[in-house]
């Protein structure tokens, strides 16, 4: 319990300190010290509880309840106040805030809220999440130290509010720990809404018109999801045959009693994880500074959405509603993977790929069998690592080469070898065997074919474009242009430390994942389902061989004899100055420029977005129709 209260409360200390201190040295010290403490405590929480059965903690404190209630009201008031900036089209936002606050206040004052036995808990899934928040989250905070300094050097037109930025960052960490460790759903919901607030604030950071509109869209869609959560609480208090507002009791109630509130909560999860039809807010969120995209919009906050859906998996298992929910994820995975092909803005590719992978997790959780949940948790871990790494790398690359367009990253391996290698590790981690995400996809395929073949087919189709857009990006980085020169501008030390400390685990987890699976995932699965899967030794050996080859073969080439004759690339014999330019048909010298395929006529946003949104809406409507009938 001490560790839980530390994780939730301690981040507020640096948050408040950083809100008032603007000296860079002090800021560095505070961020480093508090990050290291959070890493230490989250690891000690893990060592104390990992592998064990879930533990619950009761808190008898009327003051605490009042504090949470006060917090909820303050939150709603703040958001209402922020509504002064909305346009006419966004006038639904205050309505949502008032509705939610109304339900919250009504529940609290009615005195009918079921009594909460255990307000907090630790189980293996929440430990995994706590480790992701505690380690990856704080690494991103350290990265942000260097990044925000450079950000304001590059964007002098944007008002420097680094103090506010770090305040929100640490407030967010506290709220995330709350989300994954709270058993009291009312409190969990409060933390949930705090993350919405953080995301809203961060997206609007640059105060440009685009940033403002996008931040309100994110707020609106997340509040819509939040309304689902409020309704779930309302249902659980007044309409349910087994009234409870405790997460574990809700899950154990089984699909007969708990399916309606579970679907309402999953609705909130879908919005938070930007599944179709909510995906637009996450794309808009890319205007925020890159550490925000890494922390909130790929590694942690959007994971809160899938976290709660994974939690609901036992309730959803073997239900039509669960399959329809899985369908939302499957459609999202396929469509956003296709959409990512058409993007050349690196952050948008990452955003689409994030939505796609969250979709895959939703698919597994919606199916809800023990195999599927196993795969879902594996995806959560690997995705948090590799995607966090990729976002941060893109952020640094953008500051170094002045662009986040993949087309401008040609020869990155020559221009900035460190960043090139780190980016390659991140990309390989996302789609190449035997790295993490591929292992997870493999597990997903096996789980889905057993449960629902049509979902496995969506996965088979969706993974094909994935390999296309990642490989062409890789190819861009690795192409060696004769014009490319190494860039002499060192990477900030905080950023370099953060990048390395994400890149190394991305590789190590491939070797260690059997251990992670047996220590963390399998106990969770068997505590809920009473059975679990373990990996076949033969396949593990093969994957180790593959990883070994991928790492060792490059080393072998250091000693490779270089007797080869070098020539310039073939330009139909019209080369001028090596292979950098050629003699055109009219006798004019033209530079060689290679661009990737984006296939926008086939997979462009104009073509695919609207059908996917409609499919998403149809499936969600279907889910509620099935549940209510």
């Amino acid at each position, binding site marked *: 319990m001490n560790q839980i209260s530390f994780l939730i409360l301690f981040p507020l200390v640096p948050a408040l300190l950083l809100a008032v201190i603007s000296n860079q040295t002090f800021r560095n010290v505070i961020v480093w010290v508090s990050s290291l403490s959070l890493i230490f405590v989250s690891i000690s929480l893990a060592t104390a509880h990992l592998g064990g059965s879930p533990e619950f903690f009761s808190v008898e404190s009327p003051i605490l309840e009042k504090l949470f209630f006060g917090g909820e009201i303050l939150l709603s008031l703040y958001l209402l106040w922020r509504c002064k900036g909305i346009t006419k089209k966004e006038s639904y936002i205050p309505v949502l805030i008032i509705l939610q606050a109304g339900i919250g206040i009504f529940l609290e004052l009615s005195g009918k809220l079921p009594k909460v036995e255990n307000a907090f808990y630790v189980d293996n899934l929440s430990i995994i999440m706590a480790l992701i928040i505690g380690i990856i989250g704080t690494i991103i905070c350290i990265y942000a130290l260097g990044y925000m300094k450079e950000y304001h050097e590059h964007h002098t037109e944007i008002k420097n509010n680094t103090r506010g930025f770090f305040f929100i960052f640490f407030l967010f960490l506290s709220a995330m720990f709350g989300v994954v460790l709270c058993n009291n759903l009312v409190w969990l919901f409060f933390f949930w809404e705090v993350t919405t607030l953080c995301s809203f604030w961060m997206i609007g950071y640059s105060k440009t018109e685009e940033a403002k509109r996008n931040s309100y869209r994110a707020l609106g869609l997340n509040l819509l999801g939040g309304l689902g959560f409020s309704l779930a609480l309302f249902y659980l208090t007044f309409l349910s045959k087994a009234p409870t507002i405790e997460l574990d009791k809700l899950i154990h109630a089984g699909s007969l009693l708990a399916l309606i509130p579970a679907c309402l909560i999953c609705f909130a999860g879908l919005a938070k994880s930007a599944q179709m039809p909510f995906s637009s807010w996450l794309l808009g969120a890319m205007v925020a500074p890159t550490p925000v995209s890494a922390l909130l919009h790929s590694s942690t906050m959007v994971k809160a959405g899938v976290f709660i859906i994974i939690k609901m998996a036992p309730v959803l298992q073997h239900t039509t509603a669960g399959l329809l929910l899985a369908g939302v994820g499957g459609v999202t995975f396929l469509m956003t993977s296709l959409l990512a092909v058409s993007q050349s803005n690196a952050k948008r590719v990452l955003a689409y790929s994030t939505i796609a992978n969250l979709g895959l997790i939703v698919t597994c959780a919606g199916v809800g069998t023990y195999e599927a949940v196993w795969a879902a948790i594996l995806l959560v871990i690997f995705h948090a690592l590799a995607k966090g790494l990729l976002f941060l790398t893109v952020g640094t690359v953008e500051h170094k080469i002045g662009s986040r367009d993949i087309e401008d990253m040609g020869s990155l391996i020559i221009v900035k070898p460190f960043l090139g290698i780190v980016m390659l590790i991140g990309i390989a981690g996302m789609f190449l*065997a035997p790295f993490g995400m591929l292992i997870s996809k493999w597990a997903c395929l096996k789980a889905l074919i057993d449960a629902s073949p049509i979902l496995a*087919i969506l996965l*088979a189709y969706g993974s*094909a474009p994935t390999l296309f857009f990642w*490989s062409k990006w890789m190819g861009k980085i*690795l192409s060696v242009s004769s014009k490319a020169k190494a860039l002499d501008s060192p990477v900030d030390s905080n950023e370099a430390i953060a990048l390395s400390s994400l890149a190394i685990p991305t590789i190590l987890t491939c070797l260690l994942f059997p251990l992670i699976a047996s220590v963390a995932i399998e106990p969770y699965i068997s505590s809920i389902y009473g059975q679990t899967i373990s990996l076949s030794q033969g396949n593990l050996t*093969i994957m180790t061989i593959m990883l070994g080859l991928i790492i060792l*073969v490059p080393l072998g080439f250091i000693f490779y004899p*270089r007797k080869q*004759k070098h020539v310039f690339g073939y330009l139909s014999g019209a080369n001028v100055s090596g292979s950098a330019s050629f003699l055109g048909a009219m006798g004019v010298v033209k530079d060689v420029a290679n661009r990737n395929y984006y296939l926008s006529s086939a997979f462009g946003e104009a073509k695919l977005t609207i059908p996917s949104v409609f499919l998403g809406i149809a499936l969600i409507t279907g889910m509620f129709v099935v549940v209510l009938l």
Partner: protein
Amino acid sequence: MTMTKIALALSYVIVGGVLGGFLAGFDRILTARMQGRKGPPLMQPFFDVLKLMEKRTVVVNNHQTFYVACFLIFIVLTGTLFFVGGDLLLTIFALTVAGIFLVLGAFSSNSPFSIIGAERELLQMMAYEPALLIAALGMYWITKSFHVSDIVSYGHPLIAVLPGIFISVLFILTIKLRKSPFDLSTSHHGHQELVKGLTTEFSGSSLAMIEVAHWYENIMLMGFVYLFFASTPIIGIAATILVYILEVLVDNIYARLTWQFTIASSWIVTGALAVTNLMAITLFLK
């Protein structure tokens, strides 16, 4: 058990390539006969590769050879995995990794012809991947195992229950074997719109490695076709040879098509035949 596996692995590594070379020679004779020529001797592909090895390797940069070596290593690994009876999904993923190495090699040269070839190769991979995965899923549904060894020893002909999946595999096999109408990324002949596409900037021993890798790859692909008939080995071998002859015939009677058509047609064929097939067996053969 392990000893037989090691023996199988070694025999694939040694025999697989040789067999693939003969298959390539057979392909060339067959093609020549279809075109009314006599064609080269059966050993010609081996002579070609030996000659390539003799030649000096000319490169645009040093990285290229590395990627090609990885391509060869991973193709051999894929085939080995397959022939020792390993996990079919893992085999498909390893094949993808191998393919990506070749593509990266082409990208690395930064030469326009190879880059267009590389992009097209990726498009082709995108076109065939769903069919391969769905084929693996179909075989799993029937035999309850992803392991090639279990699929081979299933005892009943898979073709009887997986005809749609089989046809979709035949369709994408044309892409995998780099045959017309889907040989977009490379062409067997120079002086075409892509020069030699993917392989434009490879020569000498690098090009030889690519050739040898294709031999290994083709043998593995024929093994995949064999799985559909594995219950009766003689029919299996006959069917595999027939399939190859059919692919050569298709190669000779079709002109090259566009990437749009390649993706659309393979996805639609996969969707119409393989998906329907899979849905049917999952509904009726519980």
